[in-house]
């Protein structure tokens, strides 16, 4: 069984939203302040912590700010219940098939000043669940590990202490925790580093009998988990022993220890969601992937049939909130849920209050505004209208480039690396030279060279609406006309592409979001045509000192012939290298003339 849906009403930054989750792994991606943490917190409120120690409670401030209603509701739906789960969760089942269960939590602060108790309900009649049933669904929250002391004090301190105790000798755990909170030059950190270095032995050599002295020698399960983790780290080229030397070595180790200790207990619940928030905050990139890969594999394993088919299912589901493209690129796009903030259509309620979301992830202080309050919306990429080949194409692209393509906002799609390298320089030094505000907007955009001309899958992903929201706020695509590749009189290939893309946008009611710009030939030809021949020639000669004649000969031609000749010149020129050199010149050249289509594209991107 797994958490399939979460319905939020009036909860923090969410007005009314239905969020979908994948069976094993869901990665919530999106800008800061988009609502990812609020989603994680909603799951923390609607389920019990695996450790039994609740750290988050409903509060009045969880009610969406500025709304008249004084209540919020979180409703979680769980799918694929096997018969034993149906028996235990029968009071929460939603129909006669018994295969789906739901739990809801309503917090109503209307008319009462104190003692507001969230009301837990379940099943199709929203009645109180059978006592104990709700505890069969648990969560483990792995916060961004910014504070080692906090990590030691929460979660399962006993087990983590046990894990570390052996290496810390007889020192008082409280004293260690106290010292950990102090400045980094405290001797204890050195000691702990050493201790934890030793602590890794438990992860590394946990299978061996000599660990019988460790205090949890009988914990076969923990040792198994440690062994699996060790293998996983090795797969990702990480030697745990080396971790202590990296900046976050100790935090990383604590983190891993926490996971191992929590995993040990998941068998007692039907479902445990692992809520991993911003793993990039402290785990170095290799380790992020290793840890998530490890968790995902545990989630996969947890679906295997158990020895006792009537036992609690012990299923594991991983939900990660991240704004690291690294992580989002690492998983298939269907596992991504894009979380973003949008201005509501008509809900014009004025407020100047403080954000209800997140704790410390504001890049800037929220500004007082009279605009309608923004609300968080979610787009599950699995539900966008994309064919499997299109999906695979995007996944492959992201996997290699780690692009922030799906992080939304303003996106510029170009054909090649040359455009991607040159455009920011052109914008900074020419088009937006005296418009710092516009340039800041420009800088926030994502530049995506697709190394090809098939923009369709990307445009579809970015423009397809899900419940009236889409990933991109603006999408600008620049493509070459390639006039020289077709017979005279035939429509330009680039124009065909533009027509197709415009139709795609119109079909998705996104015409005002998309702008496609087509030149006549290709970038280099257009730059020459705009009057930058001297500049380009200088760069060309740096790369091909012997070829001045060839250059002159090509540029002397006209029309399609010139385009073809210039194109031929660049066949043997590494485009990236050329663009880098050209960028240097463009940055300092007052005389550089920006081709119109590039100017228009830059202006369209920031409008």
């Amino acid at each position, binding site marked *: 069984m797994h958490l399939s849906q979460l319905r939020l009403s009036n909860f923090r930054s969410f007005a009314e939203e239905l969020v979908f989750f994948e069976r094993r792994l869901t990665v919530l991606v999106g800008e800061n302040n988009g609502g990812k943490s609020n989603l994680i917190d909603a799951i923390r409120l609607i389920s019990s912590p695996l450790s039994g120690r609740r750290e988050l409670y409903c509060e009045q401030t969880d009610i969406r700010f500025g709304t008249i209603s004084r209540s919020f509701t979180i409703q979680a739906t769980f799918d694929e219940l*096997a*018969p*034993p*789960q*149906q*028996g*235990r969760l*029968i*009071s*929460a*089942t939603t129909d*006669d*098939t*018994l295969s789906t269960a739901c739990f809801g939590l309503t917090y109503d602060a209307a008319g009462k000043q104190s003692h507001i108790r969230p009301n837990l309900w379940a*099943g*199709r*009649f*929203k*009645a109180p669940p*059978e*006592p*104990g*049933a709700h*505890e*069969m669904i648990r969560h483990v929250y792995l916060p961004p590990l910014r504070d080692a002391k906090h990590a030691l004090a929460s979660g399962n301190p006993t087990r983590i202490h046990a894990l570390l105790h052996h290496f810390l000798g007889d020192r008082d755990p409280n004293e260690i925790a106290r010292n950990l909170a102090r400045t980094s030059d405290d001797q204890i950190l050195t000691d702990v580093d050493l201790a934890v270095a030793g602590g890794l032995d438990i992860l590394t050599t946990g299978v061996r009998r000599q660990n019988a002295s460790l205090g949890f020698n009988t914990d076969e399960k923990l040792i198994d988990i440690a062994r699996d983790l060790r293998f996983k780290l090795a797969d990702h080229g990480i030697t745990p022993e080396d971790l202590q030397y990296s900046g976050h070595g100790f935090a990383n180790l604590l983190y891993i220890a926490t996971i191992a200790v929590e995993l040990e207990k998941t*068998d*007692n619940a*039907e479902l445990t969601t692992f809520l991993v928030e911003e793993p990039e905050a402290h785990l170095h990139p290799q380790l992020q992937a290793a840890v998530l890969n490890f968790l995902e594999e545990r989630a996969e394993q947890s679906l295997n049939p158990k020895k*006792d*088919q*009537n*036992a*609690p299912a012990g299923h594991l589901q991983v939900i990660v909130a991240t704004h690291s493209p690294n992580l989002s690129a690492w998983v298939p796009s269907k596992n991504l849920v894009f979380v973003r903030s949008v201005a509501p259509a008509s809900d014009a309620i004025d407020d100047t209050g403080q954000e209800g979301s997140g704790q410390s992830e504001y890049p800037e202080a929220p500004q007082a505004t009279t605009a309608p309050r923004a609300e968080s919306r979610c787009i599950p990429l699995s539900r966008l209208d994309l064919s499997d080949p299109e999906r695979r194409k995007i996944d492959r692209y992201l996997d290699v480039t780690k692009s922030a393509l799906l992080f939304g906002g303003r996106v510029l799609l170009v054909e090649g690396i040359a455009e991607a390298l040159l455009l920011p320089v052109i914008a900074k030094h020419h088009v937006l030279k005296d418009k710092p505000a516009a340039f800041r907007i420009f800088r926030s955009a994502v530049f995506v060279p697709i190394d090809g001309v098939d923009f369709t899958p990307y445009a579809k992903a970015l423009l397809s609406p899900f419940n009236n929201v889409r990933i991109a706020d603006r999408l600008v695509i620049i493509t070459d006309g390639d006039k020289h590749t077709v017979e005279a009189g035939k429509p330009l290939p680039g124009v065909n592409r533009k027509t197709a893309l415009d139709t795609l946008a119109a079909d998705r009611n996104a015409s005002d979001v998309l702008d496609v710009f087509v030149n006549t030939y290709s970038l280099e030809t257009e730059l020459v045509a705009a009057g930058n021949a001297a500049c380009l020639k200088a760069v060309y000669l740096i790369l091909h000192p012997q070829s001045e004649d060839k250059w002159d000969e090509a540029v002397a031609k006209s029309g399609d012939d010139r385009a073809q000749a210039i194109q031929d010149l660049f066949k043997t020129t590494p485009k990236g290298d050329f663009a880098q050199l050209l960028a240097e010149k463009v940055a300092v050249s007052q005389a550089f003339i920006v081709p119109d289509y590039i100017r228009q594209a830059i202006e369209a991107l920031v409008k």
Partner: protein
Amino acid sequence: MNPQAFQPTPEQQAVIGHEGSAFVTACPGAGKTRVMTERARRLFSDMPAGRGVAFLSFTQGAIFELETRLQEERILPSPVFPSFIGTFDSFVWQFLVAPFGVKDCDARPRLIADLADLAVTPFRGAHPLPLSCFCPVTGNIFEQAAKVRGFDVSQKPAHLVQAYVTAAAAIRARLRERGQLGFDEARGVALERLKDAGAAPRIAAALVGRFREVIVDEAQDCNPDDLHVISWLRDSGLPVKVVCDPHQSIYEFRGGVTDQLFTFAETFGEGNRKTLTGNFRSAPNVCKSIAQLRPPASRMAPDEPLGPYKDDATPIRILSYPGTAVPASIGAAFCAYVKEADIDPALSPLIAATRASGAAAAGQPRPSNRRDRAVRLAEAVTDFYFAAGFNDMKSAIDQVHQILLELEGRLGDLSYRQYLADNEIEQANWRPHVLFLLRALRFDPSKHADAKAWHAAAKDLLAQHLTLGDGPSLSQRLKWNDAVAAALAAVPAATAMPRTIHAVKGMEFPAVCVVTTASTLKSILDYLETGEPADKAEDARKLYVASSRAEKLLVIAAPKSQADRLATYLRGQGAAVEVKEI
């Protein structure tokens, strides 16, 4: 009791160790609770994660007793989940009704415990009949039940009967629309679900996954519908232990199942039918005489006395009283026997089929049959202060709350439970208030000269604390009734108190006096001797239940005309019986 000290008899051991379904017939005092406790201990000693046992019985009292025992022995985990302990009705509700609701109705189903008492009146001023007089399935009137309530269908015109049936159906339809179900209606909904070829197997699979075993105690109290659910559970693959004493089935009015129970027992294989015939409660003469009270067809030998009184030679005493009315001298004569045997009279009840004959035997005023509000209030206050356990206390508190709501005129035509459900009234919101009033309403001879003074004080107090609104005054709403005096008690009586047979079910006392009347005893003896008239079987079972409560001393008060016949009959299997005229 120290678990190590328990040495089960071979019969008990066979039940404790039996895996799979079984039908267990237990005699009175067979140590059923002990056996079930040990069975539970065994099941929980290697309970796989996520699984549990369902313990079901038919009265709150029986559940309370079993739950307390299991908790004292630290067998039942806390919280109980995923195990279940509760009445059969609550099990049916929780697993077959509440999650699914009522067909063609979107409302959340709510169980309204007192719906059966809702008055059906086809027109203003009509004689009210409780809803329980009408079949929840067919809607037809239960003639016997209606007759008891003073409505003899055979004497009424067909159109009037039809008017009642129509009115009852309308009430049920309205309730159903709002998802409100009584126990009978809920059972009907559950049976509908079991007939659903799609849903029933899924529910069965879910229950099999969750419960390792279902233990149904006091199964003699179930009705045919309950039995249907039990056999469905068993046939679905759940190991079901049915524990009962078919001879103690005294709930024929709710469709008791003595005969069906015997038939049901036959469906268990030979090896799965177990008996417990060791009586740990009663003295030998009690065992021998109660064996004679079983129906002729299944009399069997007396149960073997194994308890602390197994060597006690106290004979059975028959108090032969003259005339047809139950005299107060019974109580006095019984008390003399009790004192002679060095037993506390407060632990020695006078057990009668009706409250009236019990009160007569104890020399108390005849209890009012009119459910007078002042009497009910006095009774609830007394029950609260002399409650035998938390359950009794709780029902006394609820009773007072209901009376207060009635006095304030809030219930209208709703039942008490319906009113609570409709208005989502939570205990926490009214209990403190009711407890405060209960404290103030305590009958204290140092404060109240007599019952009338208590009544006056009660009216003063309630006038201050209730919102009465328009209409009759409080004095009119809480009229004096002579029976209030009998209902009030300051201290537990140091004398034998009258109890009804239904009230002492499942209990045991060092001494009991069973009060029989001229009108019933003759036909009971006829039935026991010949098997006819067959409709006296239930009365015979009641006599059996009442008599089998006795540990040491069993006294039976009998009309003179039947006393010697009774004595002779009881000696049939060797019991020592003495007759004394009073």
